[in-house]
């Protein structure tokens, strides 16, 4: 390294956050193990002190060796002590500028800045942490430079596009509804259970004596009839359900507080959070897939969720990576609002007006047969157990038979409704697939953004004259970005040809970091 050191340094408090991260990633499990393992009081203290010193030293080392500099067209980053790494991040390649600010960050007046390109995997630069003003300077510069540099000419040409436009803001009553509709309460409960199971002593802090309670209940159980026990259980269950929903509402109020989605030209920016502020951005031209989801509850309240997959989504990265990038366009919206939001982002797209075509007529039967693979053995097992296990009450077998018949009936109904509602459509550069029976979802993929496509034919497909189409895009989706089963073979080939034409006639630069503008 003969070059001069880049001038930019992280914020003086950076070492705290590096130390905390190291603590969370590696040191915490080891520390808990050592502290819990030791019985004497002196050991944990020494171990804790040594660990704290090591963590602080690590934090100082990491933050002191991180240097950066904003050059004319790129960001220069040099980091690492043992392995020194110098990276040049051209502004044009930065797809997403994400900021994250927890309570401690806000207390110290700092923020974490993460820059991502379209490449999957690690972010291009993680600046942990910067002063708020410096972060705003860098983020603002990146946002303006890359919008001007890389948006398609027509976006730049229209002066209105450069102005910031608010697309969505979610009021508090909608957040409460979101809390009721989503199941996030279980996250909080699971967290609580996890903490309690790790530290049994916490139970002693509660004003309830569990052992006495158990003893009391077994003593009195003999004298209470089954009806009363059932009643108590029902009340407990109801209480639990209410508690979970209340926690879910609280979770929504904290994490989604002041949710706003804004657009400036090609750039989308989303802010949310009460204690931890999240400020993430991404490019509309980097959209790989849009998914609308509706659970049965959502349908009852006429609401839906709109999600997006951007190029290079590091879904499989660290937990905070999943939480700190642009992945949701609208956590809750009425279908009409979702439709208008989609229209604003993808001109000409109207979900309702799309020419929806049903799947092949064999779809219902095949979908049902697919559930039979696991449902039939399960039901057989339940009925056999009810009939063969000695000592069960006499209602067990008829009860199991009724339940099995009900299960079979429901599965037939589900498959039939699934096939009746599932459909695909192609219009104006977008291929859409909607599916579901009770919970529903819509998947939208842009035909010019497919990396590759695959037409599959199983032996059954060949008999029925059908095929399935799978589309791969440039983001880390859990399953195939788009998978349409039970397609009439000729229609499947036609859909595939659309992707092929878009892929071969309007070439996306193979390093799709530049993205291609939405038409």
């Amino acid at each position, binding site marked *: 390294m003969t070059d001069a050191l880049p001038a930019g340094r992280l914020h003086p408090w950076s070492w705290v956050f590096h130390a905390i991260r190291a603590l969370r990633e590696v040191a915490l499990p080891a520390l808990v193990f050592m502290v819990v393992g030791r019985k004497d009081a002196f050991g944990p203290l020494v171990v804790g002190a040594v660990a704290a010193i090591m963590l602080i030293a690590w934090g100082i080392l990491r933050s002191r060796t991180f240097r950066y500099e904003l050059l004319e067209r790129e960001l220069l980053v040099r980091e690492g002590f043992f392995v020194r790494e110098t990276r040049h991040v051209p502004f044009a390649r930065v797809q997403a500028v994400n900021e994250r600010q927890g309570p401690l960050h806000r207390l110290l007046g700092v923020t974490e800045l993460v820059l991502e390109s*379209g*490449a*999957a995997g690690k972010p291009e630069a993680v600046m942990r942490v910067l002063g708020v003003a410096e972060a705003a300077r860098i983020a603002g510069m990146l946002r303006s430079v890359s919008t001007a540099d890389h948006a398609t000419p027509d976006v730049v040409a229209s002066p209105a596009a450069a102005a910031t436009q608010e697309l969505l803001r979610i009021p508090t009553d909608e957040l409460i509804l979101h809390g009721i509709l989503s199941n996030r309460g279980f996250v909080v409960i699971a967290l609580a259970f996890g903490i309690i199971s790790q530290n049994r002593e916490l139970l002693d802090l509660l004003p309830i004596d569990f052992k006495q309670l158990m003893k009391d209940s077994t003593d009195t159980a003999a004298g209470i009839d089954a009806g009363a026990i059932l009643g108590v259980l029902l009340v407990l269950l109801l209480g639990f359900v209410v508690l979970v929903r209340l926690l879910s509402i609280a979770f929504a109020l904290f994490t989604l507080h002041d949710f706003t989605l804004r657009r400036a030209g090609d750039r989308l920016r989303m802010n949310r959070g009460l204690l931890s502020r999240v400020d993430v951005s991404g490019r509309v031209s980097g959209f790989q897939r849009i998914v609308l989801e509706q659970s049965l509850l959502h349908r009852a309240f006429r609401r839906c969720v709109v999600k997006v997959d951007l190029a290079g989504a590091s879904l499989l990265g660290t937990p905070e990576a999943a939480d700190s990038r642009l992945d949701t366009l609208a956590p809750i919206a009425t279908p009409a609002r979702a439709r208008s939001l989609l229209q604003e982002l993808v001109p000409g797209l109207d979900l309702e007006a799309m020419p929806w075509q049903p799947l092949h007529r064999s779809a219902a039967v095949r979908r049902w047969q697919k559930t039979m693979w696991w449902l039939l053995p399960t039901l057989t097992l339940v009925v056999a157990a009810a009939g063969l296990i000695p000592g069960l009450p006499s209602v067990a077998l008829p009860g199991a038979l009724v339940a099995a018949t009900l299960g079979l009936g429901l599965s037939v109904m589900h498959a039939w409704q699934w096939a009746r509602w599932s459909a695909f459509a192609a219009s104006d550069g977008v291929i859409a697939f909607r599916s579901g029976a009770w919970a529903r979802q819509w998947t939208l993929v842009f035909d010019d953004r*497919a*990396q*590759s*496509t*695959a*037409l*599959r*034919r*199983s*032996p059954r497909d*060949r008999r029925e004259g059908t095929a399935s189409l*799978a589309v*791969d*895009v*440039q*983001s*880390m*989706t859990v*399953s*195939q*970005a788009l998978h349409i089963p039970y397609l009439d073979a000729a229609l499947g080939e036609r859909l*595939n040809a659309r*992707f*092929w034409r878009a*892929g*071969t006639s309007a*070439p*996306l*630069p*193979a*390093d*799709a970091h*530049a993205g291609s503008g939405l038409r």
Partner: protein
Amino acid sequence: MTVERPLPALLTVWRLRHLAWIAGGMALVFPVLMVLGHELLDLRWGAAAVRTALVALAGAVIAGAAIEWHARAAFARYSWTHLPEEGVVVHQGAWWHKEIWLPVSRLQHLDVVRGPIERAYGLATLALFTAGYHQYSVRLEGLDPEHALRLRDTLLAQIRAQRLRVEP
């Protein structure tokens, strides 16, 4: 624009690869079966070894026959078409037929790979990579090495030409 098929030697390479898998599987299963025979069936070690060998041989023959049948079916279906300026279409799969469509404009990089067995049989593999996630690479196996290099160079030239068109 012609349909290309792998060289017949590829089937031999696949067979050798399968043979190695079967041998490896047997090496894992053999001691377990032998101990089970000794402990559960009260056989002496010698008798256990003989019976295990017979069982393993029968298993290997059945598995080998199934794999051989599958390999032949897969080989018969395996083909690809290079559509100049457009991309590559690959047909594969014995029972579950799969047709992969890969536009030239989506190719990220190309590898020509030659493993020891492939070298022995004068074959090469051309691997095509995209920026996708679930299907980021497609392999064209059983190519003549010179043809693999030629195809790679042709595709590279097309990629370059397309990029020039996009970013002059």
